[in-house]
């Protein structure tokens, strides 16, 4: 019940007029940018993160939390009306949502997505409120070897479950970890990989890196694509609301989606995509109207959207209590904390208690705001879908540059962002995932720290990671997660060849 008391205190801060305003501005801007075609939540967050840093910590985090949720709501709009998923986890929404829109039920698809996200997001946030303090206790009990093993597990799952090639994912991870190592070693004062460049002494600016890898590289890939690839937008007539039958068909998938998304998201393992795809598959299997699937079955929008939002909230648990982001979007949130020298981890709920609870409270408020904002105002967002691509890209460039400059006042960092954008563009073209780079760069220092602490405890004995049962089991799971996709792929390949 301690949690409830803290939460009420959090609400009292969050309900301060100024913070309500920040939350409102956050969800509005988040939706506004997230609804732009092709800008997924991670890109939206990277683009807007530096701009929130001009405010004091509580306001900035409240603002950013609003953007966090708003960007996802915006993403489902493009998935339904344009068949463009902003990120992999919105793909199931396109499978049923877009056909629904084509049948003239776009309003219902948007409504079930918005209400389902609200329901699942709120349930998941309640889970976060009650489970986070418990997880903090677990986190405090962790020894360095176990902490190290959990981080390795998170890295491996982020790497092997996201991309299409494990080796490419690991290459991305190595690049990210390497970037995280640049600068002065905090334990020995040794300068590492700065190559005599003064700006690199304090490490690579992760804000520049994120803006470059997500926003600028998006501009480059739009440039490479050519203007012909524009998708027709399905217009939206009629109200954004559901009829009685659609309500009846939606509420169970919402709850099942929340039940899938929250626990999976709360694991310190990557792959926000898994619960949404699982939800899609389960709803399809449970459905009595099999013939409707692929042509716009509302369950296929309701379930995955709920699962997505619940998973999104669930990732807050490993993020806040262990300091481990398990998705690119969670990485952006970690970066926001770090910009204010706040290190999420087992001690966060003690050291930054008012701030964390205000954040959680304002996320709950933000969810309500989004519901209110989205149902009646979605027609305004729909207008944004038809913004000409040249104007959109120009806007990305301007706000990226503005953001990087305002976070550091350094032209070197602006150049770094541009460079990271170009490199990221080439990596993405060749199928290298971006998320492991940013998560590796963010978490690398913490991983090294725990590694060295574990090795100090064991006095240099490398087997410590395997002789301690908990860490051995987790590392074993990590190896399994690394190998399993490749094995499955080969198995299905052999099967396909055999059946030919």
């Amino acid at each position, binding site marked *: 019940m301690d949690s409830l008391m803290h939460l009420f205190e959090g609400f009292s801060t969050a309900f301060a007029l100024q913070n309500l305003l920040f939350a409102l501005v956050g969800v509005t801007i988040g939706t506004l940018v997230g609804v732009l075609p092709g800008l997924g939540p991670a890109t939206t967050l990277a683009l807007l993160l530096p701009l929130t840093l*001009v405010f004091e910590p509580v306001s900035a985090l409240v603002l950013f939390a609003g953007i966090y949720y708003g960007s996802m709501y915006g993403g489902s709009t493009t998935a339904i009306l344009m068949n*463009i*998923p*902003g*990120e*992999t986890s919105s*793909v199931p929404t*396109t*499978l049923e949502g877009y*056909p629904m829109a084509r049948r003239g039920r776009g309003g219902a698809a948007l409504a079930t997505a918005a209400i389902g996200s609200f329901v699942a997001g709120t349930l998941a946030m309640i889970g976060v409120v009650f489970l986070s303090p418990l997880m903090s206790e677990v986190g405090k009990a962790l020894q360095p070897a176990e902490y190290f093993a959990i981080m390795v597990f998170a890295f491996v799952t982020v790497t092997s479950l996201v991309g*299409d090639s494990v080796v490419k994912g690991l*290459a991305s991870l*190595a*690049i990210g970890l*390497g970037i995280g190592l640049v600068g002065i*070693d905090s*334990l*020995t*004062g*040794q300068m590492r*990989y700065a190559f005599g460049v003064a700006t690199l002494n304090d490490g690579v600016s992760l804000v520049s890196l994120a803006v470059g890898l997500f926003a600028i*590289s998006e501009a*480059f*890939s739009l440039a*490479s*694509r*050519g203007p012909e*690839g524009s998708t027709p937008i399905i217009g939206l007539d009629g109200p954004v609301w559901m009829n009685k039958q659609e309500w009846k068909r939606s509420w169970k998938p919402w709850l099942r989606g929340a039940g899938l998304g929250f626990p999976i998201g709360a694991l310190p393992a990557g792959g926000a995509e898994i619960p949404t795809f699982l939800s899609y*598959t389960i709803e*399809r299997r449970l459905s009595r109207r099999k013939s409707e699937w692929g042509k716009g079955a509302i369950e296929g929008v309701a379930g995955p959207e709920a699962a997505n939002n619940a998973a999104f909230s669930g990732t807050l648990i490993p993020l806040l209590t262990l300091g481990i982001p398990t998705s690119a979007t969670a990485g952006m949130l970690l970066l926001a904390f770090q910009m204010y020298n706040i290190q999420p981890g087992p001690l966060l709920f003690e050291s930054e208690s008012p701030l964390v609870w205000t954040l959680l409270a304002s996320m709950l408020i933000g969810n309500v705001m989004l519901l209110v904002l989205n149902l009646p105002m979605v027609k305004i967002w729909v207008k944004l879908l038809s913004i000409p691509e*040249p104007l959109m890209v*120009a806007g990305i*460039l*301007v*706000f990226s*540059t*503005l953001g990087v*400059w*305002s976070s550091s006042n350094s*032209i070197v960092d*602006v150049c770094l962002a*541009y460079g990271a*954008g170009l490199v990221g*563009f080439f990596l*993405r*073209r*060749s*199928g*290298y*995932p*971006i*998320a492991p780079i940013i998560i590796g760069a963010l978490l690398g220092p913490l*991983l*090294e720290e725990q*590694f060295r602490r574990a*090795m*100090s405890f064991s006095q*240099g004995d490398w087997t410590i990671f395997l002789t301690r049962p908990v860490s051995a089991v987790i590392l074993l799971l990590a190896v399994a997660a690394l190998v399993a996709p*490749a094995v499955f792929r*080969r198995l299905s390949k052999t099967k396909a060849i055999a059946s030919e």
Partner: protein
Amino acid sequence: MSADSSGGTTASAKHPRAGAGAAVEELIIAVAVFAFGLVMVVGALGFDGGAGYQVVGPGVFPMIVGVLGLVCGAVLTVTRAQLLVGRIRGGTRDDGPGEGSRGEHEGPAGQPIAGSDEPGGAREPIGWRRVALLAGLLIGYAVLLVPVGFWQLTGLVFTLSTKIFGGKRFVRNLLIGYVLALAVYFLFDRVLGVGLPDGYFRIAG
């Protein structure tokens, strides 16, 4: 089911002839990954600052990361080189062992999935000219930002980038660009106190 999934097919499937070009690009990146690993390892060998009272010195972890990079780079280089040779010889789409095709994600239902977190993967043929122009524009933006000033330059960069992306209404875009640049300048520089480069024509007040 697949009728509506746009852009989900791989580059090589859509444009067989682009296969060799894509393979060269992949090979270059694979070699770059290897080189990155090499730099990490060589650097790690040079960290002799001493471990002090630490059991593990500043070079051990970078060495692990470097070796990871080296191994990935080596594997990718070999498989990509094989791929390239295969493409040049037969023009077939013989992907390396265990390596999925580029930019394609398979959903549980078996459909290729477009536009993920890494949506750039599957587009070909590509507008190299526009990529080069954009890179040039960004270099100009970075070099001139401080001497010329934020709003003065931003309006122009905005307009030029719309031009690169096929925007036709130059004058309208110029207007939008400068209105946006000035609005952003006043909000961030004057109201929020960020301190944007003023250039030579600082607006008084």
